[in-house]
């Protein structure tokens, strides 16, 4: 999500890309960013992008004011720039091992560690227990792909205290290439959408 891009769309003066990539010139951004990531071609891995697609439709109807929406295949280093100026960022990812339709997990800003096993997981793996750790500390071995926790750590090293970061993990079960969303993931997606819509509206009401 680019402020300069939004400015263009709104017909405002285009300004500079640095408005969105250099905090010294940062233009105001929406306080909340919802960032769904995953591969739309791999079954339930599409949950993140599909949620964003649904939220975009709501925005077209005038809902979810004050919320920016972003989607990509995976988290990468430059996404830390998308966190600048936010109050709250909610990452959305497909998750294996959830008994509930979705869970909201805090993202820890922790020292990243290189752990080769991280790359093997087709999606977020969580333990559906009282204390859930969504591998926030892991840098993948290719370094092309980051976890939310690693992104938070890199952000804090470069720009200081990050915004409130959370991960909305949506229950998933199948990640085959070319597969459609599973029936269970479809239901979970709707539940997560309803929760997110209420959550962001309540947050807005509190700010107002």
């Amino acid at each position, binding site marked *: 999500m*680019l402020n*300069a*891009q939004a400015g*263009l769309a709104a017909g405002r003066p*285009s*300004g*500079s*890309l*640095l408005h969105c*990539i*250099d905090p010294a010139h940062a233009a105001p951004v929406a306080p909340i960013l919802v960032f769904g990531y995953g591969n739309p*071609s791999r079954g339930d891995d599409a949950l993140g992008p599909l949620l964003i697609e649904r939220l975009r439709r709501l925005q077209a109807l005038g809902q979810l004011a004050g919320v920016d929406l972003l989607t*990509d*295949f*995976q988290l990468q*280093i*430059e996404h*830390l*720039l998308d966190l600048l100026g936010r109050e709250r960022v909610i990452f959305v990812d497909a998750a294996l091992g959830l008994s509930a339709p979705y869970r909201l997990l805090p993202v820890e800003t922790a*020292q*990243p*560690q*290189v752990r*080769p*096993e991280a*790359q*093997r997981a087709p999606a977020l793996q969580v333990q559906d227990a009282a204390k859930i750790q969504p591998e926030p500390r892991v*840098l993948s*071995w*290719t*370094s*092309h792909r980051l976890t939310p926790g*690693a992104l938070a*750590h*890199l952000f804090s*090293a*470069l720009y200081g205290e990050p915004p409130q970061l959370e991960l909305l993990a949506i229950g998933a079960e199948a990640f085959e290439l070319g597969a459609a969303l599973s029936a269970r993931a479809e239901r979970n997606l709707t539940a997560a959408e309803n929760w997110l819509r209420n959550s962001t509206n309540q947050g807005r009401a509190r700010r107002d």
Partner: protein
Amino acid sequence: MSSPLETAAHPERLRRVVIDPVTRVEGHGKVTLLLDDEGHVRQARLHIVEFRGFEKFIQGRPYWELPVLVQRLCGICPVSHHLAAAKACDQLVGVDQLTATAEQVRRLMHYGQVLQSHALHFFHLASPDLLFGFDDAVAHRNIAGVIRQHPEIARQGVLLRKYGQEVIRITSGKRIHGSGAIPGGVNKAVSPAERDLLRADIGRVLEWAQAAVALIKRLYEAERTAFDRFASVASNSLSLVDRSGQLELYDGALRACDAKGRIIFDQANCGDYARLLREEVKPWSYMKFPFIAALGPEHGWYRVGPLARINNCDRIGTPLAEAERQDFVSMGHGQPVRAALATHWARLIELLYCAEAIERLLDDPALSGSELMAEGVPRQCGIGVLEAPRGTLFHHYEIDANGLVRKANLIVSTTHNNQVMNESIRQVARRYLDGRQLTEPLLNQIEVAIRAYDPCLSCATHALGQMPLQLDLVDADGRLEDRLQRHADGRVLCCDAADLADAADLADTADLADTAGARDRLGAR
């Protein structure tokens, strides 16, 4: 063809060390070393453990889908595949000359792609080795360490990458998997507002690009003797150049030079690539080994990518990058620079070139023109070639009368570099590992050599149906009883036990579940 250290005489008697996965590269690869009882390296191989099958997937698809479809080959350089396919499709619709607007928009997209890719590779993947040393603690030798210790360098790297992606977004419609280039032209120009947006920051981008070149020069000069020797491999070089011999990334003719810089062929039509180049298949790797046909497989292998391009060209068409090129080539004292680590330096000269080329293009009114498409008489064969960030990229398509793809052949940059990467790791193994107690920092030197080529291993693997496969009959104790092997050329052979090492390599290749954490399993076999 078999080079020294490629195949040991008695692999079954040797200890096996695996570096798996090779880290800080795109895709999944591994290195196997076979050592004798005294720790002398007898065999070193880089294996590619993914297969792609894209040529097969796209058969039967309509040609106009190709520029969008082939981007799915790669999450790192989709724009290169997008543009190479679009160039091939231009020929399928009979267009040999794009409109000025289409040409400039595509060039802008391409320079943005190369800029962001080079920034990602240098700052994110390679700089930890160069800033902290090859033997730095593995927990620190990564991008997080760079950010902690060199935040301004890291920040500039991130911003350069971001700027390149914004160029891509504006020219192709999306930051990833856009659709700007279509057969015969582009589907949108750059609006004056978008142009001004990019123009506002190009001065800063140029400053950062110059700082990046200054940084690599400083790092290289500080370790000049060691870097000159490290993974230094004499090889032929292949790249595109323009009609005057100038560096050319988007379009041009093929030039190949030998290890002394003498021309092998020049101004060769890209459409003749199949006559100029051949590919060899080896049973232990899913990646082919290309070579210059006239020289044969033993002497004809070559390198592509930044080092080949900067060595091959006569000049660069922008002043800052040209000044840096002259400084760079003076290292070779009249011969091509051959040190693998000099590839990083060459890469950043290209990054600077892209920044300058973008600045120049942003002043070209054609960028915002209205003539987007050209037309011609359709043909049934198209060959698109360009210089992707990692090297020369070939897309070759043949279609039937209904416009459906009948045949496709893609030769990606990393495949061209297969042999030179293998030679590099063998040189490192001989010079730095031979006879020594192996440790993680020592093994990292192998990875440093591979990383210099910025390989995209997921792009570079065999087409479906050409993949070597084997069937092993193993007894209850896990001993190999019999083996049937299908080579990539279709030959099916029964193998004897002397091929055990190849079998083990390919068995591992097929078993990704066995790969993670193998760096901890030194000498496990």
